[in-house]
């Protein structure tokens, strides 16, 4: 027993633990700053948020310690049980949770309330790891891929049913894991394309190119579609001639039509691009029929789908989305300044961060967060406090700590001997990365306001414990790698 303990302490990754401790400490001070009450400045008073958070922190140390003490095989063994148990808990929550601001995600257990959605992440990660670790698993088999999708989607749907769309979106992060495990990069690429088309199409939909009747948004997106089509041909078929043909014809035609439009008769260049895209797609289908390479058909399909997507985006945005959702998106895209409504949080958060300057106002000296100008300042908008009180220097250090942790976890994942450990490790990486991306992005006004916490910073026991469990299970698995 003693020798096992010694080897365990030796093989634990102390770098990750130290960063974890640093982040949690910074997080606690931020919560102190954010929830500071002029009437009750005692942080250790357990009725204050700072005091409570301290309790959660101590508890999560306990949880972490217990997890490290457990046998690492247990996680592998019980992962499906944990996963199914968690799914049941999520399901039950929908029915028994009280309605808090429209969300039914909080379980009341005596004095504390827990959010099962935060714990479902590590359970899903375990199930995913277990499933991919199974013998004869191949991500390229449709049956297995559907299985993976099911593991990811079921908790996601349950959480959406709890009306916690933000938390549900986190599960999209698992696609990064799938990518690492062999899912075609095309999927990520297509996702990226969709986001690009959407953003550019909506953002510039009301702008026109220099007093011509050509709408800028559509023009740019259609050009991108042509460019992507050509580059896919290059990546998947390595047919330089084809790429040259498509791009050459496009550039020539566009140039000519531009001249005509400028000097002879003004018309909408989008029509030309349409013709070019459809021409390219037809050409690819022709190539498929004549040469029987499926890729040609798929690339042609990509071109057509892209065009379809562009216009359906427009339709969805204007007709399907609710006005308040439209506004949120418009605010993020900088098309609208709605400082009293959807833009208020983001504007106040930018003011708070911006007022911090290079070195910040100092601990507890932030005025914006303390006077409650920033809503959700100790939960989702906690990073404001860091920005205001610690300034550019402090905020950058926190960001870099997160980056180091993520890079370290990637390295740890890669050194796992088994798929189980690696998949689980990448799950942790992806979840942290997604939270970091969305949470800090929204505080900085770069991503839409999606209410998800910043790991180790945001006030709240559930999220803190959830992230701690997520991390410590991986550290335990990692510590046990040498015995495999």
């Amino acid at each position, binding site marked *: 027993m003693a020798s096992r303990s010694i080897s365990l302490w030796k093989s634990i990754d102390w770098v990750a633990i130290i960063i974890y401790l640093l982040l949690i400490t910074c997080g606690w001070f931020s919560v102190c700053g954010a929830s500071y009450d002029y009437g009750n400045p005692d942080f250790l008073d357990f009725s204050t948020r700072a005091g409570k958070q301290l309790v959660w922190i101590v508890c999560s140390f306990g949880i972490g310690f217990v997890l490290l003490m457990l046998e690492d095989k247990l996680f592998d063994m019980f992962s499906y049980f944990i996963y199914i148990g968690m799914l049941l808990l999520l399901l039950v929550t929908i029915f028994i949770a009280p309605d808090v601001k429209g969300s039914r995600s909080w379980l009341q257990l005596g004095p504390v309330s827990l959010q099962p959605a935060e714990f479902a992440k590590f359970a899903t990660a375990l199930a995913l790891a277990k499933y991919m670790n199974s013998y004869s698993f191949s991500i390229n088999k449709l049956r297995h891929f559907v299985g993976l999708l099911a593991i990811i989607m079921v908790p996601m749907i349950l959480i959406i049913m709890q009306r916690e769309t933000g938390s549900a979106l986190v599960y999209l992060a698992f696609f*990064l894991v799938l990518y690492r495990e062999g899912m075609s990069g095309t999927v990520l690429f297509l996702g990226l394309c969709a986001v690009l088309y959407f953003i550019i199409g909506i953002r510039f939909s009301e702008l026109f190119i220099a007093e011509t009747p050509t709408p800028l948004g559509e023009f740019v997106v259609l050009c991108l579609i042509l460019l992507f089509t050509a580059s896919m041909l290059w990546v998947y078929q390595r047919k330089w001639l084809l790429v040259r043909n498509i791009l050459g014809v496009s550039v020539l035609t566009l140039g000519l039509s531009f001249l005509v439009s400028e000097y002879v008769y003004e018309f909408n260049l989008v029509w030309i691009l349409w013709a070019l895209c459809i021409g390219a797609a037809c050409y690819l289908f022709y190539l498929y029929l004549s040469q029987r390479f499926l890729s040609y058909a798929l690339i042609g399909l990509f071109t057509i789908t892209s065009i379809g997507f562009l216009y359906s985006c427009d339709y969805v945005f204007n007709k399907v989305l609710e006005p308040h959702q439209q506004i949120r998106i418009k605010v993020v895209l900088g098309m609208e300044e709605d400082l009293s409504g959807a833009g208020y949080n983001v504007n*106040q958060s*930018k003011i708070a961060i911006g007022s911090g300057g290079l070195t910040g106002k100092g601990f507890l000296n932030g005025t914006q967060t303390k006077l409650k100008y920033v809503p959700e300042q100790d939960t989702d908008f906690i990073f404001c406090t860091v920005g205001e009180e610690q300034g550019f220097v402090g905020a950058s250090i926190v960001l870099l700590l997160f980056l180091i942790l993520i890079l370290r976890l990637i390295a740890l994942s890669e050194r796992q001997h088994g798929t189980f450990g690696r998949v689980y490790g990448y799950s942790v990486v992806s979840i942290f990365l997604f939270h970091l991306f969305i949470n800090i*992005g929204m505080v900085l006004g770069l991503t839409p306001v999606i209410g998800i916490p910043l790991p180790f910073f945001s006030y709240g026991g559930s999220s803190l414990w959830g992230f701690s469990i997520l991390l410590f299970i991986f550290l335990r698995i990692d510590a046990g790698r040498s015995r495999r």
Partner: protein
Amino acid sequence: MAKDYLLEKRKFVIGGIAVFIVLTYILRLLVLQVMTDDYKKNADSNAFLKKTQYPSRGAIYDRNGKLLVFNQPAYDITIVPNEITQLDTTDLCKTLNITPAFFLKRMLDIRDRKQNPGYSKYTHQVFMTQLSAAECGVFQEKLFRFPGFYIQRRTIRQYTYNVAAHALGDIGEVSMRDIEEDDYYVRGDYIGKQGVEKSYEKYLRGEKGVEILLRDAHGRIQGHYKNGIYDKVPIPGKDITLSLDVELQTLGEKLMHGKMGSIVAIEPETGEILCFVSAPSYDPMAMVGRQRGKNHLELEKDPLKPLFNRPLMAAYPPGSTFKTAQGMIFLQEGIVNENTTFPCYHGFVVPGLRVGCHAHPSPIPFMPALSTSCNSYFCWGLYRMIDNKKYGSSAKALTVWKDHMVSMGFGYKLGVDLPGEKRGLIPNAQFYDKIYGKGRWGGLRIIHTSIGQGEILLTPVQMANLAATIANRGHFITPHIVKKIQHDQLDSLYRFPRYTTISPQYYDLVVKGMRGAVVGTAYGATCRGANLPDIEVCGKTGTAQNKGKDHSIFMGFAPMNKPKIAIAVYVENAGFGATWAVPIASVLMEKYLKGTLSPERMKTVDEISNTNLIQYGFKEY
């Protein structure tokens, strides 16, 4: 399970994404926090509510400690545009008793950065000013219904006597220029606009204080910033004691009722102005409250120009009163002496020129000439001086003459502690060169100067100061209207005497001449009406010719030895000096020196007061 090394490369993609995100965010932080300070300013206006604490303005007393001007609470309504939500305009207009059109105009004006450069939707903007306690009370009750509206307690001026409007002046809202010139002021502040309120603004206003309050997102006050170490307590303005005697002032204004002109009385020993009447005048209360603008416009349009501060700003030809100054220069320069006589046969007559005079024995020596106001004598004097060979040229002679005049306080602003003083006019050689050509003029050309006509212009204050200088036998202290500032000292200008270039012995001769004018001489006298049975009054009348009827002027002092009061009275278009100016001055001197007036004299006062000279004078134009 074997490792797939092709897939392992994907760790770089994932790591790359992480690095890219973090670097992008750090760049964004750099832009937000380091590259601009817009957000910092924004944050301050968010969090700090700077609440101005207005000091009480200093009170104003008369020389005997009688309260003249004090403060009364009034209420301003301010708005913080950012905080106005769901405003029931109809209700607001009804409560404040304003029209919706007025409301809309005010809101537009407030937002107009041209009119209101300090506009910010986060700070207090003045919406309405000077509501009475009653008006404000109604609003106060409903205040909770109008978020973003605030009541700011201010003070406005109140007057215990409705006299001395020109001396006291008034306060009004600061103009754009005031704000530009002194950043102490912000829109909606009050500043002295005229009179003592303006010239002693810095003493009277005190120092604004400020409370820096922390305000949370809901507009609730969370206490003082850093426990108030940056707060400033307002410092109340200093009280000011005027040298005016309010009873004398009241009497003076009563006497000048129905007349145009001015009265200035000075205590010779100190230069303190005892009485400062500008007629026609107005009630100082007209300049208080929200009606100020309207009243001000009305007074401005009045053809009699009641806003015109005549004692300081009206430059009149001094007429015969000026002979005193002329005579002293001739004596000082040795042109004449006590016994020099000049002939006068109903005037100063040389070929091509005649300055008329009244009937009196001839030839006539200096003192009687002054007493009886012989034009001839002083024409001869000036003629002899300007054309005297000892100066080299007329121009040089005039320069000597002018320097004496300037030393007596003419031709330049005296430096009275009231705004708007004019300098009058004492012509110099260049002045005449310009009119007649260089060297082409002499004593005869400018002979009217000798009797205070022609180009010479004096303000009533300068004339009163001449009386005071003569009373002092050769020196004066710059006339001033403020006697004392609480916890502060007067400017040295008002504490130390200025000496003229004339020897005191010549002043004695002039004094005797002025005494003669009152009590009479063998050669005649001009102002017997100024004589008082038990006070030795010295005086000199003047009758200044001008476009309309002559101005009636008196300048004098009493008693002859140890004078207590020097006075100049100027009644426009009223005829001979002896007719109106003399009795007015006489009553005032008696009142000041004796404290009361006999019932007989009170009758004279009423008679004078009830005489309207304006109508008549006006027809002449």
